[in-house]
């Protein structure tokens, strides 16, 4: 679960990690009062959306006076923000963060994530801050340093020194101290909050020698939300597509894509592979929908309804390999959805695995109109022919 920048900074503040003074506003009317509490000008106006690449999309602006701030906030709240990481239509901005400007001496990168290869939380540090870290990794990998955390001991002082003393030129002692303190606090909150990612880019050294998190990105491990109730309450449902939101409520993995073939599959791997064969057959999937290995009849009905609610869908492919999910359960779920909703587009069904015979029988004896595909290739070709 991703947090907004302002939420992440609030957490940083509570953990003693310096962040710029700031105020969140929801409308242009609040700007003047908010700015009266922040030193400046200059101020920084930052759109609060989960999508990355905000700077490139015009979601971060420096303003010199109140009028300019009001007009920038107005524009941000009115027009969808398009960044390299959003769809071409962009995302709506509902909240804007206003912050004090900083006198920046150096821009660094500090992050923490779980490294799959070593199975440890790992601190990532670079003196090339303020740029996309992927770009730094591609062009100057030697500028990226990593320190894995030993699960037995936790983060150690020597690891912070290894990173901080790598800077060229080496900063004065008070800056080194500020940096190593931020590292220690990040590693602590990473574990305490069950994070899968904490990222500060840039972590700036101000002219006064402070280390300040100019940006903040926290992602909480979805699997740990059961024990991170405070963090779970920070979820912003507005950041999700409405159909994705409905799917989430029923434990369905649904992701909206750009095409017009609706697909319903059990299992994430098979769902990805089904998207791939649809594409190979010359069509484009409208979604990724994994109803899960052990879906119930109700989940199937909901999943099918979500596809039916998508106006872009011109044909539907159901591909189920029954395992824990039995084909007869699938068949009943589909029929239930068809009873409540009109199906105005061609439907192609491919069933295999546990209870496949009774599943096919249930579908055949219903009033549902559909085409049967014998195997995956045939299914993809059939569905591609409909659009």
């Amino acid at each position, binding site marked *: 679960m991703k947090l907004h920048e302002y939420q992440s900074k609030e957490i940083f503040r509570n953990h003693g990690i310096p962040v710029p003074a700031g105020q969140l506003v929801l409308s242009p009317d609040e700007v003047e009062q908010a700015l009266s509490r922040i030193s400046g000008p200059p101020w920084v106006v930052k759109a609060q959306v989960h999508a*990355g690449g905000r700077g490139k999309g015009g979601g971060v602006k420096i303003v010199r006076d109140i009028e300019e701030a009001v007009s920038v906030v107005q524009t941000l709240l009115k027009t969808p923000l398009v960044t390299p*990481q959003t769809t071409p239509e962009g995302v709506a901005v509902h909240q804007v963060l206003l912050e004090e400007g900083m006198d920046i001496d150096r821009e660094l990168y500090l992050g923490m994530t*779980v490294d*799959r*290869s070593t*199975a*440890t*939380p790992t601190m990532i540090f670079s003196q090339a801050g303020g740029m996309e*870290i*992927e770009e730094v*990794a*591609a062009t100057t990998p030697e500028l990226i340093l990593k320190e894995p955390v*030993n*699960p*037995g001991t936790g983060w150690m002082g020597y690891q912070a020194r290894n990173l901080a003393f790598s800077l060229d030129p080496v900063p004065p002692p008070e800056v080194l101290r500020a940096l190593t303190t931020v590292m220690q606090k990040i590693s602590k909150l990473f*574990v305490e909050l*069950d994070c*899968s990612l904490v990222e500060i880019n840039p972590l700036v050294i101000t002219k006064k020698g402070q280390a300040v998190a100019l940006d903040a990105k926290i992602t909480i*491990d*979805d*699997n*740990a939300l*059961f*024990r991170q109730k405070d963090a779970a309450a920070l979820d912003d449902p507005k950041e999700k597509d409405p159909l994705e939101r409905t799917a989430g409520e029923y434990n369905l*993995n649904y*992701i909206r*894509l750009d095409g017009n073939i609706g697909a319903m*599959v*059990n*299992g*994430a*791997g*098979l*769902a*990805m*592979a089904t*998207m*791939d*064969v649809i*594409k*190979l057959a010359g069509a484009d*999937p409208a979604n*990724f929908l*994994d109803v899960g*290995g*052990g879906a119930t009849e109700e989940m199937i009905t909901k999943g099918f309804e979500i596809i039916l609610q998508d106006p872009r869908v011109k044909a539907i492919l159901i591909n189920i*390999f*029954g*395992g*824990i999910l039995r084909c007869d359960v699938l068949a009943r779920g589909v029929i239930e959805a068809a009873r409540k909703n009109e199906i105005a587009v061609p439907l192609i069904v491919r069933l*295999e*695995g*546990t209870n496949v015979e009774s599943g096919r029988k249930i579908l055949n004896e219903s009033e549902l109109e559909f085409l049967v595909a014998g*195997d*995956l*290739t*045939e299914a*993809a070709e059939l569905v591609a022919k409909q659009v």
Partner: protein
Amino acid sequence: MSILVDEDSRVVVQGITGKEGSFHTRQMLEYGTRIVAGVTPGKGGMLFEGIPVYNTVRQAVEKEGANVSCIFVPPPFAGDTIMEAAAAGINVIVCITEGIPILDMVSVASFLRDRDVTLIGPNCPGIISPGKTKVGIMPGPIHRAGGVGVISRSGTLTYEVVHQVTLAGLGQSTCIGIGGDPIIGTSFIDHLERFEKDPETQAVVLIGEIGGTAEEEAATFIRNSFSKPVIAFIAGQTAPPGRRMGHAGAIISGGQGKAEDKIRALQEADIRVVINLGRLGEEVREVVAG
């Protein structure tokens, strides 16, 4: 032969009285798996389908000689029960549970590091040596004993692949789902090493997906140290970056984990990569026929 599990495996089911655990215990019994014990803390002393239930894995090992464990314990407690099985001396632990917090798995990985134990999963369908034993949740009837080894990061996609291999007239030595999470107990390479030594295995099907670099590492290993033919498939060739595709591990992020990079790495290691999943069975038959 087969790898890791066979008809002599003595299986303990952790979480045997739960919804998933009880259902799949019956399925495994039907397949012929030798389930010698179950574990549910607090329910020790009862019988489930005639199988003795114990409070701890240690008791199941001492009393019944269990050496393989199959875990159906819910995510908040699953990490703890993996360590319990390892500490009790179980050799092969199969963890089916999906949704274990990643930091719990950091602890598990660290705990297992210097122990002589193999963890399969978590978030996996398990392992089956057709005709001998099934430790997991895959549908038994689609399998057939034979010479193709299968290693996969996925669940139902593995069933699709196995089904096609069986329809192509071939059987399987052992099929392993290594799991869809970012931290899993064993990699492709761990099992490739075993398949290399298994005389019954003639060829291996490797099923990968987007996310991480496990397939690239497997490609390097195969080029340098694996002598049998390998056929690979990568799911998620059309997946958009930054979106988690169901499995916690299946995400293209930070420029890593793209299907095209994995396919290229495998092809450069002279591995046959199947692009159209619908043709996988046929292509495996072609490769095995030489």
